[in-house]
């Protein structure tokens, strides 16, 4: 093996893949653009709400106890006040869900305020039907209206709903039986918010009346049921630390795994393309007159490894920067980052060996597809495993799958990045197992590569590939 030839091949491989407009735009600029567009998309979705419903709600209050409270509850001012309150809750949640700096919190406040202006909430005219009103008549009236095609938006005359409240809904008729309830008749195609606003209003009003009839102070009950809990802390070796929330336990392992997958798949895919290209435009024989098949394959694999590595470096720096600006550098675990790189090398070499073997065996991309299918399916496995593995990083399933190459690096990185990392000896053993697997994969690829490169014609199936391995 001649090092200078290998590095020459690797250099060309890297330059012709990574130093192109397509790669730079696709790999680096695109994620940045997506990150910039994201808030815009969210705003658009929020403002793309359907127009709010406006109309009449009839109350057929057989208990003659609820309607007064309900009229107040569904009055336009009351509805508006509740929606404002809801926005404040959203603001509060958004600020605490994701770790971020103060000025970012202000920005989110502003965005939500803007969005709240564009959202319109339903407006009701609530009419208690008299004691002698018939539910059948009201239903018939609503049906006539629907049939005549009267619109449900922006016209207070439109009947949106008829609420039928039971006689015993707020007062028990006898002690053995429970309270009665209510039923709502709705105009078709109402917004979900409208329906829940009405139902919640009825339920709230009935409860309110029950409390009062029973002589219980509702505010007091609420105060009693509400138990405050401050953010829990973990006592670690270094001292007190904010306990990992759902988001950090989930996001960091998954992001690490996906990063690993993207980096090794990208390099491998490019390796497949360039190998097929060199084979189909016959440049391969010229190359083989200058270097051996092994030097060529090694050079190509190393060249594309640098492509994957540069993706990995750029993306992991982006991640570190993001955490830095969110003032959550404490989330960064340098061991995990080092292991991402170690596992990348292992995963990439296995994937790249397969790609080099496939690329050398086929004549064009189309023929490659059929051989690629099992490989791609295998690479999809980590996705299926991520929920069980993250939930229980040291379960039997997690431990076993993390020892099976070639998916092993992807599973292991999730375990390592989780809040319950495996013992160090397991990490060491997994690295060892994968290193052995890499040697086996490379050996297989080398055999196929040497024979496949100069074979033209019928694309091989698995059996022919095995024959080539024996031949070489």
């Amino acid at each position, binding site marked *: 093996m001649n090092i200078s*030839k290998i590095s*020459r091949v690797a250099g060309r491989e890297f330059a*012709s893949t990574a130093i192109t407009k397509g790669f730079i735009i696709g790999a680096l600029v695109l994620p940045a653009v997506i990150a910039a567009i994201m808030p815009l998309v969210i705003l658009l979705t929020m403002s793309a709400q359907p127009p709010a419903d406006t109309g009449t709600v009839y109350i057929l209050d057989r208990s003659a106890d609820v309607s007064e409270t309900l009229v107040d509850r569904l009055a336009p001012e009351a509805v508006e006040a509740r929606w404002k309150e809801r926005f404040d809750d959203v603001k509060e949640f958004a600020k605490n869900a994701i770790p971020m700096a103060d000025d970012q919190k202000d920005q989110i406040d502003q965005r939500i305020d803007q969005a709240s202006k564009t959202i319109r909430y339903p407006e009701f005219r609530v009419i208690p039907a008299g004691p002698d009103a018939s539910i059948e008549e009201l239903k018939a009236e609503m049906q006539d209206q629907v049939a005549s095609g009267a619109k449900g938006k922006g016209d207070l005359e439109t009947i949106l709903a008829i609420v039928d409240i039971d006689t015993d809904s707020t007062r028990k008729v006898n002690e053995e039986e429970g309270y009665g309830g209510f039923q709502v008749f709705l105009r078709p195609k109402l917004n979900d918010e409208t329906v829940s606003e009405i139902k919640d209003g009825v339920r709230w009003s009935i409860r309110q009346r029950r409390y009062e009839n029973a002589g219980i102070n509702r505010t007091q009950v609420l105060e009693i049921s509400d138990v405050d809990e401050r953010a829990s802390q973990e006592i670690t070796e270094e001292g007190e630390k904010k306990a990992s929330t759902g988001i950090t336990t989930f996001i960091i392992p998954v992001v690490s795994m996906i990063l690993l997958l993207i980096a090794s798949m990208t390099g491998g895919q490019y390796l497949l393309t360039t190998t097929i290209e*060199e084979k189909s435009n*016959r*440049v391969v024989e*010229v190359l083989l*007159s*200058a*270097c051996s098949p092994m030097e060529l394959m090694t050079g190509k694999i190393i060249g594309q490894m640098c492509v994957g590595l540069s993706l990995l470096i750029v993306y992991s720096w982006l991640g570190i920067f993001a955490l830095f600006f969110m003032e959550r550098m404490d989330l960064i675990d340098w061991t995990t980052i080092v292991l991402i790189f170690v596992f990348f090398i292992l995963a990439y070499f296995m994937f790249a060996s397969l790609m080099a073997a496939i690329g050398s065996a086929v004549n064009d991309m189309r023929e490659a597809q059929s051989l690629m299918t099992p490989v791609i399916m295998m690479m999809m496995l980590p996705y299926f495993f991520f929920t069980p593995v993250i939930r229980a990083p040291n379960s039997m399933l997690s431990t076993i799958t993390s020892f099976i190459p070639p998916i092993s690096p992807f599973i292991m990185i999730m375990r390592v990045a989780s809040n319950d990392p495996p013992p160090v000896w397991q990490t060491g053993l997994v690295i060892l197992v994968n290193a052995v697997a890499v040697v086996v994969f490379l050996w297989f690829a080398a055999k196929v590569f040497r024979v496949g490169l100069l074979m033209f014609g019928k694309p091989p199936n698995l059996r022919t590939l095995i024959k080539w391995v024996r031949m070489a």
Partner: protein
Amino acid sequence: MSQAVSMQGVRKTFGSKVAVEGIDLSIPEGAIYGFIGPNGAGKTTTIRMIMSILFPDRGELSVLGKKSAVESKDRIGYLPEERGIYKKMKVGAFLMHMGRLKGLDRSGLKPRVMEWLDRVDLADVHKKKCEELSKGMQQKVQFIASVLHDPDLIILDEPFSGLDPVNMRLLRNLIDDENKRGKTVIFSTHVMHQAEQNCDHVVMIHQGKKVLDDTLDDIRKRFDPRALHVDPIGGVGRSHDVSVVPGVAHVTPIDGSLEVVLDEGIDPQQAMKSLLDAMPMNRVEIKRPTLEDVFIEIVTGGKRGADAEQLRAELLAGNTDDEEVES
């Protein structure tokens, strides 16, 4: 003189198909050798084995004094039959890459590339992408890639296919120049007259076997067809009159003239005289054997008839293919 390439009893099979069977070969340094034979005869397989791109199943092989070409790749220049080029790469960059792969230093490489491009009349293309060049131009670029590192052994597989007559002559002169500088040249062709124009030594391969290995002069002497071409006044209708002339074995009309095969032991000079005495002639000349004739004679064992004609047709078909590309 030491040997540039030597092969003993080399055999190569692909599955059940025998591509090359027991080839012995010895090519001295500084020679210019032509490998000839029809398509699929085993020329490319032989060349690939010399290049150590393929490895023989059996037999000994040495290249430039080493057991395999792997150890002396940088001293060998190779133009494969299947032309390969990085389409998206610029011509200059491609040649620089190939030069450096062949072990040349970066320093002095660029002037060298430019000088070669100039020699093949492509001085202005080094900034163009390879895919923008015509097929003939690409072939010249590939020829440069194979000789750029000043190799001692130059192996060209079908170097002339796809070139117009002007470029064919240019390439022929470049090959001659390299040979005059003491470089060993091996080239293969299925168009036999190209070998006649270029080499001093010919190796003929047929169905994986070497059927001839000699200098062109010796081949001409050995395969003297003892035949004349005659155009009697009165045309081919007088073939019977010609056939009764003493010393004439038989007469075949070919393309409006007559091919006269002489009896064993007859001196052609004497026969020409007898023919001229027998009747007035527009033309009488001694037939010179072409490599095609030699090839057909070897393959058919000197018999004439349908087999020979079919073989000739096949060889000519190969030629026409080529000429179509050339035009």
